[in-house]
């Protein structure tokens, strides 16, 4: 439990909490970016360099942009005047609190966790690449297929339907 870890963890959690609680959606999205950047830093702290950079590339570079685009396309960029919480939110909070309690209790009291801290494993990108191309080649292919399918699916779902205006100019 080093100091950088604690600082980064706090920033991450704070940003996550902000992302879930701010009223303005764009602020939420930006806080979300911070949270993911923090997570990437946590990965770096855990000696997972490749995963950390990939996290930034995917979440900050792609998903965050997607989210802000979605926010603007659904015209919810302004701070809403009505309630932002769903009815019955209190139950949701309660359930999540119970979930956290249970998880935390389990983590703290578990006897299965290893007690000693091993030295940092010497992994290079080359190792990851080799594994991806040998042991995990099938999942890699499937992921490629999945991404293609998701891309096509997303395009089709979000595609503007051809307007059904008939010749008299009435919208149907």
């Amino acid at each position, binding site marked *: 439990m080093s100091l950088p870890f604690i600082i980064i963890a706090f920033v991450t959690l704070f940003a996550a909490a902000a992302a879930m609680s701010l009223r303005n959606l764009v602020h939420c999205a930006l806080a979300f970016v911070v949270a993911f950047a923090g997570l990437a830093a946590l990965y770096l702290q855990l000696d997972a360099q490749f995963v950390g950079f990939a996290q930034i590339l995917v979440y900050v570079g792609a998903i965050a942009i997607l989210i802000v685009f979605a926010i603007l396309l659904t015209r919810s960029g302004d701070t809403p005047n009505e309630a932002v919480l769903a009815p*019955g939110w209190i139950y*949701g909070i309660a359930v999540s609190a119970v*979930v956290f309690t*249970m*998880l935390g209790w*389990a983590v703290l009291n578990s006897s*299965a966790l290893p007690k000693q801290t091993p030295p940092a494993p010497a992994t290079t990108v080359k190792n990851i690449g080799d594994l991806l191309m040998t042991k995990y080649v099938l999942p890699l292919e499937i992921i490629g297929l999945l991404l293609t399918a998701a891309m096509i699916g997303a395009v089709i779902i979000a595609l503007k339907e051809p307007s059904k205006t008939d010749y008299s100019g009435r919208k149907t």
Partner: protein
Amino acid sequence: MIWIVKNLWLIPVLPLFAAGIIAVNKQPARKLAATLAIGSMALGFLLSLCAFAATLGHHGDGVFREVFSFPWIQFGGQWMDIGWVLDPLTAIMLMMVTFVGMLIFIFSVGYMAHDENFMRFFCFLALFAAGMLGVVIANNLFLFFVSWEIVGLTSYLLIGFWYHKPSAAAAAKKAFITTRIGDLGLLLGMVWLYAETGTLNFYDGGKGCLESGALATMLTHATIGGMAVSTMIGLLIFLGAVGKSGQVPLHVWLPDAMEGPTPVSALIHAATMVAAGVFLVARVYPLMSVGGIIGAHGVPVTTSLTVITWVGAITAIFAASIAVAQNDIKRILAYSTVSQLGYMMMGLGVGGVAVGMFHLITHAFFKALLFLGSGSVIHGCHEEQDVRKMGGLKKYMPVTFAVYAVGMLALAGFPLFFSGFWSKDEILHSAHNWPVSHIPFLLGCTGALFTAFYMTRQVALVFFGSYRGHEEKSAHGHSAHAHSHSSESSHDPHESPAVMTVPLIILAGFAILLGFVGTPAWPWFDGYLTGEEFKFDFSKLTEPGTLGLMLASAAIVFTGLGLGWFLYGKRQRKTVAEKDVLEAAQPFIYKLLENKYFIDEIYEATVIRFNAFAAWLCDFADQWIFGGAVLLVKYITVGLAWLYRLTDEYFVNLGFDTGCEALREGGGGLSKLHTGRVQTYLRVIGVALVALIIFLIWGRKA
């Protein structure tokens, strides 16, 4: 092969195209329609002249005959050929049909000028000409039959041209149905012929059905009553000719066909179509005459020819006697036509192709002349057809009178100068020499007497005396006078326009001149058709047999003419209602003749009654026997269906319905858990997660 043989098909196809173009045109294109129809006929006539020229100059070296055939349809393993033949018979008929047709077409332009269906009329006329020319050129019984039926169809269409008149519609139907009876025979004969010989081609370089090989085969096969197959087929084919040419007993349609426009009557029912039957017999003459005993004058005698002779002779006298007592100008001519067709048949039977065909050709011209003349008269008298209401037209219509007189004299057989004399004389001559019986000759002579008599009666009633048409019109025309302001003279008969009279004059010329190609002294026509050598020999005229017969027939004609003039010409009837001279003298016979021997009534009482009974019988069977069967099946089906429904409803569905109901209620209860809000589901998942963790921890401990 000469080019005209190859291109003979053009002659019928030209009017066919004309008909097609007229049919697809818009209605008011009158000039186009007339030009097309007449032009196609004129072109056809030119081509016919070429064809005729090709057939000339073959005397002495047999009959000129060229055929052109090609395969048409395949059935089974065999190909049906169609094709055309060019021989003197074809050529002469082509000339006659195209020339007379052309003149009649020209006449029609004037006659139909005021008809609103002018286009349709010319379309049908052209179509008719196409069919008729197809009949003429056909080298194949099949093509012949197809064209024959086209002719029948157009005949129907043209008789019923004024279909809004019920009588015209009925006449059209009558003509169509009656000729169908004959065509049935023709069709049967055709099928039988095909079955026997395997071909329907008339001439096919030795393989045709009219050539020696096939004829010999047919002659050897015997059928019912010991008759040769060829005889049976010949008689069946002759049945077709009987229908088409109006021979007894299928003559009834021809007088009724006068309901059509007069040019139609002239073209179809005098000059060409009815001649098709005669032409058919002439065409299949080898079939008819095969195996016959050659008589004294080189004429074969066979069963079929004997039948033809008798039918022809009976028709000739029968129709001529009816014509005596008719009052409708066209009807008189119609019965005259029937009678003359009888002569032609008789001529074919007793004297061969040349004798019958010669009368056919001459008759075509003078009968066309007479019909068109009568058309002119009718036209001039404001569509009046009753001879009793005419009279004195000589004064009003001099041209028509002149040509009509020529036609009348030709038909009556006025000696030496008119074609009818020569052709009829030849028939009587052959009949006189017929070895089987003398009765046809006597019947023919009587018929000639009647012919001269009724023609004189007609001309006397129509052209001499004073005009009687005003009587009736003035009787009920007062109100019309009040507002129509038509002058008195508009009711007078008037001469027809040149477009009508010029064809008449041309026809009159031919009615006189044509006789000279077939005199005993110069039998060119006979030589042309048979391909035999002949020479000009004036002495033949003065041979005892010939001269005697000529004198006898001249005497008969003069008797008829004199009798007619004595009874009708000298003492003209004064009023329309006045009784006929004959009626006054012999009311019973006159009644019989006026009502056409009650043939129609006999048919009504027998054939048609039987037909109606058969129809009623079929209807009864349909309604009660077959209908009952259907009804029974229906009730059985309904009963079974009712049973099934019962089972379905009270056994199968009951359990199923209950199950479904229970499922539906259960589902409805469960569906209340579905709030439709995702977040609720997520909450439940969270609770489940907690439960899972607790389970895992406890499970571990345990």
